[in-house]
């Protein structure tokens, strides 16, 4: 077998027991790696209905056949578990040396279950597993813990760690590696529930590829393309450049989605940050793009900032002070908080406070100090922070009154920085997303920013565009390659098949990969159905359906519920699902998912 070790390592941190579980080549070919293979493993390892924070809940680090090759951006890994925030399947990606070292331990994935009795570090060293005390690391920030782990174990080990937020089971805590985060859905809390501070990996077990010379040639070609115009934005400006564009289109979520235009957008624009504050540009391991832009904070330190952090900790909270936004991003990174959910939760709390639903007189839109204070309270579950650490869905249910109407989530996952009423194909992508409101598993905004869709008047015809982008994401996230490369492919499926052929030796085709992508999206859906998904979840927060987005620089917009329902129905039809979103037996069989057959009818 080329490109794979042929199985995964299952580790029980209660006992320290480790087993290598072989995986048939046919399964690897059907699910590839990353999010796809991780979904297959999770479905097999997690009992139906498992509490995500119980010892029985497994967490999967999943690598891919491309990891370890010279293909640019291939040093990536997926982390897959049932989310404590959504109670649905959650997959998050991260990158860099952990992926390379993790695969060299001798496994295509590492599955962690159980619960330790005291804080531990899990070491996977060339396939040998050890549990060591993490007493001295417990309570440390992600950065401090990483630095101390490096001191203890040396530079050959690479660590994925949690911060204080994960230790305290904040439901949107992240897993951090090398200052990057597997960010969404609370995977850090799953780690914390196992009393697991860090996983450190080291290895020397390389896998062979089928066509070494062909892989090197493909890597050179892909690298050359990665220097071209399709990735220029990420290199030259970073994603922070989105802010003014979205603002101009009245699509920049502002003050908890009460507006789509932020009056002070120019003061925090990516252009201003790049001109006055950028101090470094970095890359992940094995990446030629270099998208990480680091900006100077007031204390002289630097922090990496993406559009999603900028929008969530800026306009969404009404904050226009760039120093405060950078400081907030740093707080989130150090404590291990997902910046999107954290910013959205603070913004939600600000609106609750302004409406008198909670007693928090300082918590007002635009109050940067209150935002910073609340972030730290969430991370440490202090006072009001203990409630907010449950996420906006659960907090709104506890607060009551009108709060659930403006809690900004889908399936419990807070919305990223795309105003759905102004980007209505994206609205559909959010509504049907398997992990909730998500701009990484659905890139439907691409249709909204094109002539192919009317962004202010979504229609059933948009369903095809939403399906198309979701399938492409499923393939990219399973190969795994960086989505910032997506623009360099003329035919993603055919070109990916060529890469996979050279690595694995399989006679895989573009058509097969189309089917694979469809299989992976459907498998995630089947997992969610097993966990209790119902069609009522495929919707948007009531605010988006009942309140007009006021006009800003561009016109306002409405997204009536019947319009969204028509789009969701069209999406089900486009996928070949029934009118309640159930997957017909015939499709389950056609996709080779018969083993998932037991529970694919929504309740």
């Amino acid at each position, binding site marked *: 077998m080329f490109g794979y070790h042929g199985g995964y390592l299952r580790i029980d941190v209660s006992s320290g027991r480790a087993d290598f579980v072989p995986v048939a080549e046919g399964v690897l070919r059907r699910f590839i790696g990353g999010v796809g293979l991780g979904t297959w493993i999770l479905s097999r390892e997690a009992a139906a209905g498992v509490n995500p924070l119980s010892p029985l809940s497994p967490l999967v680090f999943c690598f891919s056949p491309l990891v370890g090759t010279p293909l640019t951006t291939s040093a990536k890994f997926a982390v897959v578990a049932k989310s404590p925030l959504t109670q649905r399947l959650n997959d998050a990606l991260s990158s860099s040396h952990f992926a390379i070292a993790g695969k060299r331990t001798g496994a295509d994935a590492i599955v962690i279950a159980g619960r330790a009795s005291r804080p531990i570090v899990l070491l996977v060293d060339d396939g040998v597993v050890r549990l060591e005390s993490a007493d001295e690391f417990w309570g440390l920030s992600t950065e401090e813990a990483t630095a101390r782990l490096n001191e203890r174990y040396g530079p050959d080990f690479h660590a994925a760690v949690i911060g204080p937020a994960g230790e305290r089971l904040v439901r949107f805590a992240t897993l951090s590696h090398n200052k990057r985060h597997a960010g969404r859905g609370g995977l850090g809390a799953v780690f914390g529930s196992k009393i697991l501070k860090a996983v450190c990996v080291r290895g020397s077990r390389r896998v062979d590829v089928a066509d070494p010379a062909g892989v090197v040639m493909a890597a050179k070609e892909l690298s050359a393309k990665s220097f071209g115009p399709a990735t220029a934005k990420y290199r030259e*400006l970073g994603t922070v450049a989105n802010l003014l564009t979205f603002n101009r289109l*009245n699509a920049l979520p502002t003050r908890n989605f009460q507006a789509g235009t932020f009056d002070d957008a120019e003061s925090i624009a990516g252009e201003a940050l790049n001109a006055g504050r950028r101090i470094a540009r970095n890359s992940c391991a094995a990446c030629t793009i270099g998208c990480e832009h680091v900006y100077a904070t007031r204390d002289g330190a630097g922090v990496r900032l993406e559009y999603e952090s900028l929008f969530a900790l800026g306009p969404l909270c009404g904050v226009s002070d760039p120093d405060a936004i950078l400081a907030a991003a740093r707080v989130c990174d150090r404590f291990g908080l997902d910046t999107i959910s954290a910013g959205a939760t603070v913004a939600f709390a600000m609106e609750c406070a302004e409406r008198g639903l909670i007693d928090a007189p300082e918590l007002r839109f635009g109050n940067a100090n209150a935002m910073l204070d609340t972030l730290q309270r969430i991370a440490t579950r202090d006072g009001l922070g203990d409630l907010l650490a449950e996420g906006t869905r659960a907090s709104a249910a506890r607060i009551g009154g009108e709060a659930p109407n403006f809690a900004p989530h889908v399936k419990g996952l807070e919305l990223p920085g795309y105003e759905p009423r102004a980007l209505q194909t994206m609205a559909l992508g959010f509504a049907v997303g398997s992990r909730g409101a998500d701009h990484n598993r659905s890139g439907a905004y691409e249709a909204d920013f*094109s002539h192919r869709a009317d962004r202010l008047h979504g229609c059933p015809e948009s369903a095809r565009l939403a399906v198309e982008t979701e399938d492409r994401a499923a393939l990219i996230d399973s190969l795994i390659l960086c989505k910032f490369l997506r623009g360099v492919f003329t035919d993603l499926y055919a070109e990916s098949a060529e890469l996979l052929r050279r690595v694995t030796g399989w006679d895989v085709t573009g058509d097969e990969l189309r089917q694979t992508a469809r299989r992976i999206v459907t498998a995630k859906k089947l997992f969610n159905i097993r966990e209790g998904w119902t069609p009522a979840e495929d919707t948007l927060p009531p605010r988006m359906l009942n309140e007009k987005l006021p006009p800003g620089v561009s016109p306002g917009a409405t997204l009536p519920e019947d319009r969204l329902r028509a789009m969701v129905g069209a999406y089900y039809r486009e996928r070949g699902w029934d009118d309640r979103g159930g997957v017909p037996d015939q499709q389950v069989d056609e996709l080779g998912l018969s083993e998932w057959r037991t529970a694919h009818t929504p309740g």
Partner: protein
Amino acid sequence: MAEPSVTVELFGLARHRAGRADLRASGRTVADVLRAIVRTCPGLTGLIAADGSLSRQYVVSLNGEQFIDDPAEPVPKGCKVLILGADAGG
């Protein structure tokens, strides 16, 4: 008869490469306006592909409401022409 003049707003890479946020440009069609932009802002030479179509790197919107695929599309009087990055998302 003089060609109508429109306001062009630049965002993302277009703004970065032009070194300015906006300009006035004349033209009856999107293609006319694009050529006028390139004449004023040499940094945006890549705006127009070799075959005269809009580069894959950029998208054009009229007033932020309508996205344009066909460079022959007329530009209405008083319209604002937005030049945006094609990779507008994260």
